[in-house]
């Protein structure tokens, strides 16, 4: 009964439309910073919101903010995506060409020559933890404090890792040019 009361209460308080509108660009960019192409990022974003919409009755406002809850769903969606893709591809392809993990539509093939495509491939080749931190910082536009809460790492540790990864990314980008 208490749970039902809580559900009724948060149903009144949470403005889902507003929460979703605010989170949509951040979640889509979160996926893009994981190195997937734009159409795949849209699919994963849609999947995240559909899951969230169906499960919104299980969201408890006293446990976390809506945005935190949405990014947890996005994170699991991303893990599922990469796990499935890895199962579908032979190991030697993954080792040689990590960029083949993503789709290859004609529309997006045209992007390949530009800097963004170059950065996307470099991001895709990053170790998972580093890529996640970059995606949370620049895709989800989270502060280091929010990332610390989300990942369980310390703020200092996050700052150090991000600094190192950004420098490495910058160098790699320069080398590619």
């Amino acid at each position, binding site marked *: 009964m208490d749970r039902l009361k809580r559900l009724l209460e948060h149903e009144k308080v949470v403005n889902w439309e507003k929460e979703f509108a605010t989170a949509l660009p951040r979640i889509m960019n979160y996926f893009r910073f994981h190195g997937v192409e734009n159409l795949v990022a849209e*699919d994963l974003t849609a999947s995240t919101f559909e899951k969230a919409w*169906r499960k919104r009755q299980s969201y408890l406002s006293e446990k976390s903010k809506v945005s935190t809850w949405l990014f947890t769903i996005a994170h699991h969606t991303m893990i599922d995506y990469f796990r499935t893709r890895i199962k579908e591809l032979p190991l030697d392809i993954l080792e040689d060409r990590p960029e083949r993990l993503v789709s290859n539509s004609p529309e997006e093939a045209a992007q390949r020559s530009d800097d963004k495509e170059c950065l996307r491939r470099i991001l895709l080749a990053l170790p998972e933890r580093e890529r996640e931190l970059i995606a949370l910082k*620049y895709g989800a536009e989270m502060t280091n404090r929010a990332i610390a809460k989300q990942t369980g790492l310390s703020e200092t540790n996050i700052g150090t890792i991000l600094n190192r990864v950004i420098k490495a990314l910058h160098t790699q980008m320069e080398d590619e040019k």
Partner: protein
Amino acid sequence: MNDKFLKDFRIEPRPAFVQDLSLRLQIHEEQTSLVKTHRLRPIAFGAITLLLILAFMFTISPAARAQVQDWFSQVGGVFFTATGDYPGGDEPVTIVPSEEMSLIEARAVLPFTVDLPVWVPEGYVLEETVNILRFGDGVERVFIHWNAPGKALLELKIEDAVNSNWAVGLGSIEEVLINGKSAALVRGGWNFDKKQWENQGQLQLYVPHQAQTYIFSSMEKDISIDELILIAESLP
């Protein structure tokens, strides 16, 4: 720290994508509104419907009476109330919490057999978990989903009853045949924001199966009526 190249990597979502996603979420909204409607116990709802019919029969003309009887219909053994209004009225909305579990667990706890279609359109993959709703009067409903990248969800809703009275929009029902037997196809649904029935391409196919009602739902742009019928026909 020069991170401009990372900030420049961000993009805004395409308006067409935002619009499409909004449409895809509407099917869930419409399904939620039906859950809310069915807080009314099916038997009580049936009794209210009968009383309304009797009241009309005594008070209005034969011509009008004939039309009213059309609004309460039975198609393919499933009862419908076609209405232009929201049948839940202005009473406060209650969200019935659902239980999430694997299909195997659901099959173990539900008092009826859960059959799945053998065929679904290419690309659709069954979700690992299902949701169960339990109403106070013992009626149980299970929700099973199939996903396909970039496409609207395919949902199978199974209600452990065959005598429920489903609220639908006026003129939204048509009869179709599933393996030669009558079933009901309903177009559109209740828009909870606009407080009106409308058709934005939602399809729902109501099929009596064993002692339950199986309802397949999706969007016509991704799953055609013929495909929805094929899915239902592939039930064991």
